């Protein structure tokens, strides 16, 4: 029987992990909402951002958090370009399928280029505060994990504000909900979709930096992330940002708790079991998301 | 006896598309379903044919409850439909488009050649009757708009339906073809097939139909023969937005 302290520690770790999942899944679900695109390359961009943060720290000796000054705008631009130059060229009839392949190709491309540039060696940012932690009601919280969680939280809150409070967010939501109606009221949906993609990728830049703070990175790491993330967006209901965030926190917590009795490997299967259960019993997801039925 | 729905209701998010649609169509007749844009006609078709699951209500056809059944089950019950914007299989030949409507009787039947003589003959027969037999070998996507509409109808007829739902058959069609479609519907009706037609072209509706149901805001507001509907105040109100 696990002790109360261990349980509490696992809950804390699960929540910290869930925050990062939530941010990443939000980006993934945004793409799906905008264009019905399952963006396999999302986690590859995540690792790319982590590498850039690592490189920034290693070569320039600056705090990895500062790398976001460069990576966030860079990724935003990359997202816009990706949507405008590649995805918009696909035939709408086969868009969903072909976009999976196309973004898959991009993911493999990024993995290959990362391997070429930085070799397959595992990398880790060595920070002065890397092993620092503090106690909280008997649990210990690592400073870097808290920073990562804070970054995810800020980025998610920012995303929420952009979507709910700005004119652009209004246009974006209109584009997601009803592209043709949006066009009728004078929204340039193509441009909005591009910007939406940019924002999605920008969240990957933030997430990658957060990831780089506390874990090892290597080029093929993105496969490790894409599975859980896709499970999260299905469980959350394809296309629903709050659904994805809720599913992410829940599954992150569940994974962390299940590690106590089951071990790390088996605990990971919780994502896939949730995915299969969702599709078998409730294809529209557990947290809304009206798009899911048709995809 | 015939196709009828009771209290059909469907909402998309906050928008109510069908709001308690209780309708009974006349068997063996040409029925029309009219109403202003957004009054729920296409949603109604989609709910009846199982493409969309209604939130509430029942669909029955010839004493059989079809509520919530899969589209292919409803099709096999004898209800054929065309789509508002004419859906065909663009990369298949016109002939294959019609043959795709053949229903194999079992596993071994399914593995028989698709171009079986009997069925091919029937398919060509329909293509001939609709006047597009000369295009049998062409990829359906290369046909003109009007030809595609005829091809879609040929596919539906291949399933030998008792009741045919036509969603805007006159949409985007030239006057000559419009006449042909009108004649065709009358002929097929005379052969015993019931029609339900959603249409905006009032001339066609008034000249063709025996019985008209008027939808507004997701429910029927009036029904009757053309002569009655023409003068119904509620109908005028719905169309004029009064």
């Amino acid at each position, binding site marked *: 029987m*696990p*002790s109360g*302290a*261990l349980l509490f*520690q*696992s809950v804390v*770790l699960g929540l*910290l*992990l869930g925050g990062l999942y939530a941010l990443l899944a939000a980006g993934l679900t945004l793409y799906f909402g905008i264009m019905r695109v399952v963006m396999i390359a999302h986690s590859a961009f995540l690792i790319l951002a982590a590498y850039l943060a690592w490189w920034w720290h290693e070569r320039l000796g600056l705090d990895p958090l500062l790398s976001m000054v460069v990576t966030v705008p860079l990724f935003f631009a990359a997202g816009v370009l990706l949507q405008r130059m590649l995805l918009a060229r696909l035939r709408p009839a086969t868009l969903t399928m072909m976009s999976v392949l196309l973004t898959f190709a991009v993911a493999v491309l990024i993995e290959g280029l990362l*391997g070429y540039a930085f*070799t*397959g*060696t*595992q990398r*880790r940012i*060595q920070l*002065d505060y*890397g*092993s*620092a*932690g503090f106690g909280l009601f008997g649990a*210990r919280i*690592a400073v*870097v*994990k808290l920073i990562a969680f804070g970054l995810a939280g800020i980025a998610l809150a920012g995303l929420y504000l952009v979507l709910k409070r700005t004119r652009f967010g209004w246009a974006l939501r209109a584009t997601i909900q009803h592209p043709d109606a949006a066009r009728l009221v004078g929204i340039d949906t193509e441009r909005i979709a591009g910007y939406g993609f940019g924002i999605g990728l920008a969240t990957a830049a933030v997430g990658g930096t957060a990831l780089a703070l*506390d*874990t*090892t*990175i290597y080029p*093929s*790491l993105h*496969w*490790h992330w894409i599975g859980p993330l896709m499970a999260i967006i299905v469980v959350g209901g394809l296309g629903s940002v709050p659904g994805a965030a809720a599913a992410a926190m829940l599954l992150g917590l569940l994974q*962390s708790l299940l*590690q*106590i009795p089951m*071990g*790390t*490997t088996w*605990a990971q299967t919780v994502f896939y079991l949730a995915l299969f259960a969702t599709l078998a019993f409730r294809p529209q997801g557990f947290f809304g998301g009206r798009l899911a039925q048709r995809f | 006896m015939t196709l009828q729905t009771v209290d059909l209701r469907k909402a998309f998010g906050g928008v109510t598309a069908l709001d308690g649609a209780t309708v009974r169509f006349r068997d063996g007749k040409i029925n029309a379903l009219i109403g202003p844009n957004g009054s729920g006609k296409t949603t109604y078709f989609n709910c009846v044919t199982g493409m969309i699951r209604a939130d509430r209500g029942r669909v029955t056809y010839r004493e059989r409850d079809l509520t919530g059944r899969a589209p292919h089950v409803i099709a096999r019950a004898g209800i054929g439909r065309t789509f508002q914007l004419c859906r065909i299989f663009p990369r298949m030949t016109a002939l294959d488009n019609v043959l795709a409507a053949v229903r194999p009787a079992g596993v071994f039947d399914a593995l028989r050649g698709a171009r079986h003589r009997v069925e091919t003959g029937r398919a060509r027969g329909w293509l001939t009757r609709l006047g597009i037999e000369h295009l049998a070998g062409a990829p359906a996507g290369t046909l003109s708009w009007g030809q595609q509409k005829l091809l879609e109808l040929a596919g539906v007829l291949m399933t030998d339906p008792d009741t045919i739902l036509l969603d805007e058959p006159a949409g985007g069609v030239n006057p000559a073809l419009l006449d042909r479609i009108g004649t065709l519907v009358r002929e097929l009706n005379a052969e015993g097939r019931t029609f339900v037609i959603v249409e905006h072209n009032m001339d066609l509706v008034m000249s063709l139909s025996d019985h008209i149901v008027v939808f507004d805001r997701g429910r029927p507001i009036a029904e009757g023969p053309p002569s009655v509907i023409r003068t119904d105040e509620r109908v005028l109100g719905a169309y004029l937005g009064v």
Partner: protein
Amino acid sequence: MPTTVRRMRWATALGAAAILALGACSGDDEPATGDDPIVVGVSLPLTGDFSEPGKGVQQGYEAWAKIVNDAGGLLGRRVELKILDDQSNADRVVADYEQLIGKDQVDLVVGPFSTRLVVPAARVAEEYDMLFVEPAGAAKEVFEQGFKNLFYAAPAVANDHYNHLAAHILALPAAQRPKTVAVAAMDDPFAQGTAYGLRDKLKAGGLSIVVDEVYPPNTTDFGSIAAKIAASRADVLIGGSQYQDGVNLIVALQQLDYQPKLAAFSTAPTNPEFAKAVGNKTEGILSPTGYSQDAPYPSNTEFVAKYTAQFGTPPEEDQANAYTTGQVVAAAVTAVGCAEQGDCQRKLVDWIRGNEVQTVVGPLTWDATGKPRGAHMIQQWIGGDIRIVLPAAAKEAEFRYPKPAW
């Protein structure tokens, strides 16, 4: 229209590329050269998961070839390495040895890196009746396949790495002896082999195993495992690690402020980057090693000097293992007097089986399965430096137990 034209162009381009590829792949059989060097074939993971240790092994082989050639070669013939990249992939490693033996007609083959790749590679060599000396297949499974031509060129297999440490712990007076053990091992035959060798010996000696975790090779988040270990407050921590996973686990444990009395990790602590990677909080960490740059064997002095001259840094364990492999093969070739495919290979195998070979890791002999008979030395981080502490005969510093806080 434009789309169609564009499509055409790509079709033509791809068609041309395919034809080129086909042309390039057929018929580039190399003609046998006149002065006939001894070609030694090897496949290494230069890309992929094992690329880092793979490069170390490559350097070891290159150093060996250079040192041999500078001394006049083998049997008066130059030694030439033919290295293929297996991308850390078992399918490829088999294709590579298939190519080396069948197509390139190399005279000798030596082993790749990592147990996962050694077994499939060894089978190819076995089925072509080639001698197969290898630097990396340390897990016991390698020796359970019934291979007759395989020899592992290192002092001990994974399960025996900690023999000296286990003996030392169990010899402590009962009052001092640790009581509880936490184990976390990567799901990898080698890493588990080392950790479980020690775990099983301690368990047999009466210690209780309170945590026993396995994590997949691609694990990056060690928070949960660390939480479990920290909650158990085990006296002894055994980490079956490669490199980065060991670093990650140690950092995660330090984040939770866990202080064991003894912490042993395989391979990671001997890596030159290790101290920096864990923020120099290395105090007291133990690691087994099969190789020491300071070992007094004559060939080792030469190896360290010449290797340092060639590569600018002293050799590590991976390099030394590859070099040892070369030494074993060279000894057999010199003694038997031949190096080519065919009957000669049988003679080489028989010679190695019956003789002791002097290497940079000391004298080596093998049992019938190709398993070496020996144990590893134990090193400990003391005052910012890693020193040999066990066995007593080879120690450079005193073994510190319980270990100071990290």
